[in-house]
């Protein structure tokens, strides 16, 4: 997929300036920058969640997204939390649950899972969608260090296995290095990619 962005504004305030971004299967990008610079806005444009911008988004890749929070359906069990959004069958959902280490938790509701388990369920859901490109919006930011490291390693392994591309939004360069992602720094006002 390829984004040619000319500008993105909220009211009179221009947040993002001219920038180009392209990613395909197997490629990993990390968008870095301080809080409030427009990283998440850029990811929302890529995800098709924000269409109020000037520019062009091309590509027919299958997308999946991991959000800052787990964003699960509290009224459905773990398996249904994968089958309903992705449309996959229950067997595939169970396979992905065991892939992220949640075997035995299939019939539990999100509230019965710890925060770390909820995040792994969200990761399983994203991969069960069979994405060409996985979009991640600071998925490890609110986790403790040990859980974040485990999640990062798990994400890396699953990306390797499925061959999916990834766009990671983060403020932590170490996460980008661990995932082996090409780091793009957002800076300035309106924000553009900065040369290192």
């Amino acid at each position, binding site marked *: 997929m390829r984004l040619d962005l000319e500008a993105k504004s909220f009211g009179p305030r221009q947040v993002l300036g001219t920038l180009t971004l392209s990613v395909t299967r197997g490629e990993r990008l990390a968008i870095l920058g301080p809080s409030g610079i427009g990283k998440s806005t850029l990811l*929302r444009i890529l*995800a*098709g*969640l924000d269409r109020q911008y000037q520019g062009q988004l091309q590509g027919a890749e299958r*997308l*999946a*997204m991991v*959000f800052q*929070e787990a*964003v699960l*359906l*509290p*009224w*459905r069990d773990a398996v*249904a939390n994968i089958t*309903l*959004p*992705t449309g996959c069958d229950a067997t595939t959902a169970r396979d992905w649950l065991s892939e992220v280490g949640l075997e035995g938790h299939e019939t*539990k*509701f999100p*509230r*019965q*899972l*710890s925060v770390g*388990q909820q995040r792994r369920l969200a990761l399983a*859901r994203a991969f069960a*969608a069979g994405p060409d490109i996985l*979009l991640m919006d600071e998925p490890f930011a609110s986790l403790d260090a040990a859980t974040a490291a485990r999640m990062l390693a798990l994400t890396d392994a699953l990306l390797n296995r499925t061959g999916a591309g990834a766009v990671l939004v983060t403020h932590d360069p170490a996460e980008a290095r661990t995932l082996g992602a090409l780091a793009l720094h957002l800076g300035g006002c309106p924000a553009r990619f900065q040369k290192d």
Partner: protein
Amino acid sequence: MTQTQNSRPSRPGLVPGVLSVLAMLVLWTLASQLTDRPQTLPAPWEVAARILRLASGGELWLNGGMTLFRVAASFALAMAAGMALGLWMGRSRAADHWLNPGLIILLNVPALVVIVLCYIWIGLNETAAILAVALNKIPVVTVMIREGTRALRPDLDDMACVFRMSPLTRLRHIVLPQLAPHIAGAARAGISLIWKIVLVVEFLGRSNGVGFKIHLLFSSFDVEGVLAWALAFVAVMLAIDLFLLRPAERRANRWRQDAA
């Protein structure tokens, strides 16, 4: 995983409810014994005997059944229309701007006016009766569902959008579960309002049903009969609330209480 403590207070059971009903019966008995004219306030057992006579004669089932049918039909109509309108107005700002004045007018038109106009315009028939009741209830359901729709979680909307969930799946698995408390509230508030309006509709223009019987008894000032019909039907509506609506509400809210 964290262990949550069960801090819910123990349930009081049926004792307070039964005691308060008994207290009301005692009060009624005392008042009926103290009054000079027994026909203005008959004793509870006289009313109970009348209910038994009505039930054994079959009259209660025929007229009660007709009233119940009208309650069910107008309830279904009001809930369906109110939910569709409420969802639409909660989701679309434009729809809300256009429909809100009409909604406010309908909320403030007296029930009696709607009933009379329906009978005049449509005729003294079942359609007019059911429509008149539903029209009285639709605005209330619409407002409750609209407020619920405005409070829907945007993050779940984003998730559904990224994963390209179909509109029907979204409605069923994302929107309706979030609206469940509002729907249950509208249903329970609605059913009691609806049966009261059904009685007025029957009083004014039907030839059967509890409201029609009360009309007849009113012309002969038969308080015992009025109380017998009213209490018999209150019992039916309480049973519906206890055995149908509350269990449905509990089932819809089950996931909230399932924390380990």
